[in-house]
């Protein structure tokens, strides 16, 4: 009789709280205002063919029924045509497609509905008002749907970022990268690393918590794949000797795992800012001596009159920026003042700014007048900017340079390359457009190298990613220098913390799960 009762009781004990939250984060911060049902217009504002209104939360089904009364809920995840009417007045609002997504198989993991209504402002505001009148519903805050998806474990933090980037993607390469990140590639990579660390940490923690107190059983370590010398403990003898063996810490398995991870992290960090550049645009700075045609080139590339063009040297005095889509890659194009000395204070300030911008450039488009290469300004520019960048460290420094000789239309006809002694360069005529295709091709190559090819692997798209990976790497450095095992474990914990902050999650229970799975701990 008791047995039956206990089963009932223990089922009840598990009931309301299950599944048991697996991370501290999950249990402590159940997302703001969860419990309420939220609604919002999910497509763009303004007059359009179709507007999509979404709800998420426990009252979603009730809201759908209220607006489509007297009809019942449509089948799950099937588009159905329904007449929407105001639940208070019964006044018809629109004939619309409605979708019903019962949780947890929905975007947010909660019960969700979608109303695909006609996109007139009056229809949209009518439906939104009708939803607002349903008890338990309130307008969503910015990003709240995604936040709920994150809180319910539907998206990791990097996936959330990927989603935001996808929504904001303006160029082809950006879209490809955002989609890959939304698919969880970066998250998977980090999780893979975090798993390695968790396992290494579990081994160290097991060694701290159980090797002496519970005489961690030796054979199990074969299974866990970590021969820390317990084999000796068994044939050998007593606890003091276990202590001596433990001197060979850190445990070799953890140690080699950590070394491997350091290498992997290093490779990704050397990727440096590629993913970020792809996300926010590479800095392309157009520079050169005065009157070489820099502003003309900027206008040509951006297909709009960004800068004033005149035959007078020193027309451009400040830095002018314009975002452009260059061969599918985002770039921030800067037009700068021509570099020369001994002019008025205003232009001199422009020159100073141009030089500063040159230092920060990811790619320099150096423009020279093909017909004026012998002038002091041209020579000086070649010596101070073009040659150092060309000769400079081609791998370490990521500052790249493309040399463009403008005004090719003024060169004598038939002379294909009049300057074989110059570093590799392109001929272009901003006036006729000749050579533009070649320049765009070269730009595409340079930008692909700068931004990375999103189709080859996950990139670190935000400085946050880089910060945490660097933090992780630094902590692994601490691990190797740690004076005792508790400090070594602390370094691993910090490292793991950085990785889990990339994707969210990461509690101590995970470590214990690995310990108990891999080791026979026990008195």
């Amino acid at each position, binding site marked *: 009789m008791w047995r039956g009762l206990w089963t009932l009781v223990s089922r009840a004990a598990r009931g309301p709280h299950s599944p048991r939250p697996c991370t501290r984060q999950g249990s402590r911060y159940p997302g703001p205002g969860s419990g309420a049902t939220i609604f919002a217009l999910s497509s763009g504002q303004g007059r359009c063919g179709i507007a999509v209104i979404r709800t998420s939360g426990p009252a979603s089904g009730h809201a759908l029924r209220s607006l489509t009364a007297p009809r019942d809920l449509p089948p799950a995840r099937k588009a159905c045509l329904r007449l929407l009417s105001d639940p208070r007045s019964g006044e018809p609002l629109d004939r619309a497609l409605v979708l019903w997504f019962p949780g947890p198989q929905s975007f947010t993991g909660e019960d969700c509905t979608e109303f695909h209504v006609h996109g007139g402002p009056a229809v949209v505001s009518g439906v939104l008002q009708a939803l607002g009148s349903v008890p338990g519903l309130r307008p969503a805050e910015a990003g709240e749907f995604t936040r709920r998806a994150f809180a319910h474990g539907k998206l990791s933090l990097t996936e959330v970022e990927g989603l935001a980037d996808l929504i904001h993607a303006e160029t082809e390469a950006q879209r490809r990268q955002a989609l890959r990140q939304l698919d969880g590639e970066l998250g998977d990579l980090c999780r893979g690393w975090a798993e390695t660390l968790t396992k290494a940490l579990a081994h160290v923690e097991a060694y701290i918590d159980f090797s*002496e107190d519970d005489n961690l059983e030796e054979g199990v370590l074969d299974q866990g794949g970590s021969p820390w010398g317990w084999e000796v403990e068994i044939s050998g003898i007593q606890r003091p000797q276990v202590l001596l063996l433990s001197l060979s810490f850190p445990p070799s398995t953890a140690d080699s795992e950590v070394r491997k991870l350091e290498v992997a992290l290093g490779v990704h960090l050397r990727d440096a800012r590629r993913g970020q550049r792809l996300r926010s645009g590479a800095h392309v700075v157009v520079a050169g001596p005065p009157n070489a045609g820099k502003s003309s080139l900027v206008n040509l590339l951006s297909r709009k009159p960004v800068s004033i063009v005149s035959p007078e040297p020193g027309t451009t005095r400040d830095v002018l920026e314009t975002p452009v889509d260059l061969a599918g890659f985002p770039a921030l194009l800067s037009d700068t003042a021509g570099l020369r000395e001994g002019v008025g204070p205003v232009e001199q300030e422009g020159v100073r700014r141009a030089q500063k911008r040159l230092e920060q450039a990811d790619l320099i488009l150096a423009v020279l007048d093909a017909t004026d290469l012998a002038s002091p300004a041209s020579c000086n520019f070649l010596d101070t900017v073009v040659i150092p960048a060309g000769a400079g460290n081609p791998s370490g420094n990521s500052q790249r340079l493309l040399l463009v000789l403008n005004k090719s239309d003024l060169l004598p006809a038939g002379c294909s390359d009049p300057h074989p002694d110059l570093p590799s360069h392109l001929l272009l005529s901003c006036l006729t457009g000749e050579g533009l295709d070649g320049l765009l091709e070269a730009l595409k190559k340079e930008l692909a190298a700068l931004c990375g090819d999103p189709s080859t692997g996950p990139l670190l798209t935000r400085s946050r990613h880089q910060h945490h990976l660097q933090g992780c790497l630094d902590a692994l450095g601490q691990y190797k*220098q740690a004076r005792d095992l508790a400090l070594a*474990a602390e370094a691993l914990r910090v490292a793991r913390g950085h990785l889990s902050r990339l994707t969210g999650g990461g509690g101590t229970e995970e470590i214990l799960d690995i310990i108990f799975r891999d080791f*026979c701990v*026990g*008195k």
Partner: protein
Amino acid sequence: MFCIRGCGRRVAASLTKQHLASVRFGGDSAAPWTPHFDVVVIGGGHAGTEAAAAAARCGSRTLLLTHRVDTIGQMSCNPSFGGIGKGHLMREVDALDGLCSRICDQSGIHYKVLNRRKGPAVWGLRAQIDRKLYKQNMQKEILNTPRLTIQEGAVEDLILTEPEPEHTGKYRVSGVVLADGSTIYAESVVLTTGTFLRGMIVIGLEMHPAGRLGDQPSIGLAQTLEKLGFVVGRLKTGTPPRIAKESVNFSILNKQTPDNPSIPFSFINQTVWIKPEDQLPCYLTHTNPRVDEIVLENLHLNCHVKETTRGPRYCPSIESKVLRFPNRVHQVWLEPEGMDSDLIYPQGLSVTLPAELQEKMITCIRGLENAKMVQPGYGVQYDYMDPRQISPSLETHLVQRLFFAGQINGTTGYEEAAAQGVIAGINASLRVRHKPPFVISRTEGYIGVLIDDLTTLGTNEPYRMFTSRAEFRLSLRPDNADSRLTFRGYKEAGCVSQQRYERASWMKSSLEEGISMLKSIEFLSTKWKTLIPESSISSGKSLPLRALDVLKYEEVDMELLARAVPEPLKKYTQCRELAERLKIEATRNKGSSAR
């Protein structure tokens, strides 16, 4: 001081018999002869004794109710206290002036600090304890605690009244009903029933109700709690058989000797009661394939193992070890049960096979070929309350002024129980005096980690403390528990004696003074090298180095340093604990590193 009350004749209406709504007892309506206490603690185990003593220390008139006074302080499983994580808890209990550390310093027979080489944050103070001595010393302590009354009796029911409107909770507890029908009124009630709530003992296929071998379970109380709406779960644990000492062939086994000198558990003790050379050794042996065979052949005779109830993963029975990790050899420690005890506790051999098979299994093991089993191992299954139903002060959300501590909250281990007991006792007393609860955070102590884990995550296996559970492990060290908790306990809870407070204050100021002294002494590294030739200070470059930086070198301790610079450092080596803590603090001290 010691009072065993007779049977009351009054019969109280009981929740188990009547509908709740009809039960209305008010404190004022109590008959004048009805006993009335500030705090009533139910259970005399490790949680109960700490709770009762803590409440009494805080100034509350306290009653400890137990089935049998002679089992107060009984160690019903392993004959040891402390360990890694658990030793940390004991230090914190001691910092709040709890009992178990002091009693262990009077009752140990083999003291050993574990993890000595893994860093001071994870040192594990541990000792084999003489069961008989522990019980005697604990009873002496409990029976001589001012304001604390002890009474024998089985609690069957709780007396409930309307809740206080300014607090959450559906009811308020105002007393208890005993099995004989008598009632005792209380301002706060602490429940520390251990494995007694619907306890069932399992040996082989036999199951019988019992809280502990030879003790009755509490069934009425379990039903009361369930009827009130507490979410109840079921856990299991086990204990190994006991072996006659004279039947073991120790001569062929590996011997472990205790530490010399012994490190006491309590901050207020400089030494333990027994000299290292008088302490008893432990011995190590191993299981073998024959043991596996016996377990596997007889699974059908073993209903404890077949049960789905969750047992601990880290203290598994030999059956679960064989099933989960087959074809391995497992360690068995043979531990003495006491100075003059003729029993041996085979740690690692927890088993629930039928008794005759247990004996057969034991005799397969090296050194135990002729061993005589004095008492079989057994399993215990018991009810626990989902700990997410209690607040960090250990008061239940459902019933005001009702506190849970110990195994009832799903924990295992003497130390985990004691830690909760102290907190429950303090808070039961503070609650009576309308003072804010005494809560320890995760950043302040392992007690905080324990209670926070339980109350926010719950547990589905017996919860045991490990150092890996503490995020702030490097700061929550056994050596500094007093500086973390004693002052708070003194000021906020009033559970700390003047003597202990003064000792902690002296230690705190000595440490501060010592650190600033070490910072003020500065020589060139070449001079340090001549002063302390044993050190690995590099004499290549001549750099100024503070004594504090020299102390960071692994091989340098205060003793060496004081030999090099006797004035003014000598006085800091006179107290062993102070010298050791200075060394730890120096290593922890950020700034110019020694490496």
